[in-house]
């Protein structure tokens, strides 16, 4: 599996299962889940690996808060040491500020607003 330069998180409760992101993703790492969200839509999900962080799905998606794309994932991960190795799936975004990540030790909350203040080098 190619190294994941990016990471995409689906806020399953805001997704309407329209499939536009799935169709748009150039590396085919998104699909529609067999699980339903509260609204009754089969939501999108990320395979957990292979996202390049290109952001194409973000602009394809009509829902303002359904997708969050992290571009420089390796760096983000390093800053969030709690997120172990590659097992960060699924990262659920509760709103623009809070997220839930899963590690081998279980679920934990991630403060996403802090991500905006991180400085990365390309």
């Amino acid at each position, binding site marked *: 599996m190619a190294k994941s330069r990016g990471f995409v998180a689906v*806020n399953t*409760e*805001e997704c*309407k*299962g*329209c*499939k*536009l992101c799935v*169709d*748009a993703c*150039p590396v085919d790492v998104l699909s529609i889940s067999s699980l339903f969200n509260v*609204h009754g*839509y089969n939501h999108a999900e990320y395979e957990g690996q292979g996202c390049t962080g290109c*952001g*194409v799905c*973000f*602009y*394809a*998606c*009509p*829902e*303002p*808060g*359904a*997708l*969050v*794309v*992290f*571009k*420089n994932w390796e*760096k*983000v991960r390093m800053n969030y040491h709690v997120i172990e190795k590659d097992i960060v799936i699924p990262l659920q*975004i509760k*709103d*623009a*500020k809070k997220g839930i990540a899963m590690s081998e030790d279980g679920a934990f909350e991630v403060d*996403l607003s802090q*991500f*905006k203040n*991180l400085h*990365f080098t390309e």
Partner: protein
Amino acid sequence: MSGQILSKSSGFFDDYIHKPGEDKSSTHYCPGCGHGILHKLIAEALVDNDATEKAVFVSPVGCSVFAYYYFNAGNFQAAHGRAPAVATGIKRSLPDSVVISYQGDGDLAAIGGNEILHAANRGEAISVFFVNNGIYGMTGGQMAPTTLVGTKTTTTPYGRTLRNEGYPIQMAEIIASLKAPVYVERVMMADTKSINAARKAVRKAIKNQVEKKGFSFVEILSTCPTGWKMTPVQSQEWLISTYQEHFPLGVLKDISDQVEPLNLDHNYAELSQVPTLIDLPKENFEVHKENIPDVVDEEIIVAGFGGQGVLTLGVWLSEMGMREDLNVSWIPSYGPEMRGGTANCNVKMSTKRIGAPVIAHPTVLIVMNKPSLDKYGETLVENGIMLYDSSLMGDDLERTDIVKIPVPATKIANELGNTRISNVIFLGVLTGLSDFLDESVVRNTLPMIFKKRHLLDINLKAFERGLEISRAYKK
């Protein structure tokens, strides 16, 4: 692409607090609807141009009627098609704001066709985003002016035909043919490349406004999967394979680099200058404020037939109210009875600000013919004053809870030698009876209305006769 994390733009509310119901985090749009994509592009462009604080959204009628649920910006809800007119008002009164007129094709190209043309032609310094999805989405899939020939909709069940409905209208081309607009582009939201181009166009239209460049218009070919009865993915494919052929993409006009920033400063009269400008010099006479009550809230209907000076009497009353520093409104009321030769007007005079100028239950009723008595007699409030022309009708209104004053106005007017002055007689009676009309104000105003000596003389006589009648009744 900006930043390292792409997430919900701060141009949106964190929680959609204005949205009713439990769900405050997802939009009301159908799955895959283009409106959502455009919303994201606009929110991002506002943030990137540092314009969220001064952004005012004008939402249309159509599926995007609820845009105010989402954008963390000011919002006005315009009547169908009127967003450019509302945007004009906002931009002119708040020149530093960033005003966005967001409209669908039913809204902009059908019912609002006139509004957009003139706003564009005036070169209003606003940004217009025109969502061309080829259909009326909100109302359930009727034909829009942009619908392609052959397309079946609920109102073109056999498909649009040239014979019946004409050609799909190309708004961007029309707008670009006008002199004033500085930037007109047609884009599409169908795949990565086109969405990226749309993103740039949206950004430019907003940047132009921030830089005071003038009128920017972006037409966006967008999907309505529900109205089109296609999946979102099929809808986007159809935009690419079919729709764009009829609405060629590209920049149709861009002179934004060549024009100087507009001077959007107010160049309007100060409120205090208005009386002079409309020839209402106040300094000519004294207003005895002590003669006018602290609280005035009168709703006056004047009704009669054309030629009796019904509308004019209303205008005078409002003019006198203005001189007394009251808030006033005057509207002639056009009903089907206009054709029957009758006329009426609604006048409000108040120490409070006036909202709607229409009157349901007048406090004062001046009726100059029988049909008006029949029509309005019952609407008068309890203890209201009714002046009626007793030379033309009897008092057969069965109400004892109002003050009825018979005024033989036509008879007196004839005696004085001019039937047309009966309205001044009513003015005299009302001045004598009411506390909200100061006699000296009325007296001093009449010479400004009747500038010719002989007209003034006869009208002053008529006014005195009216005052005389009022003396028989206590104030």
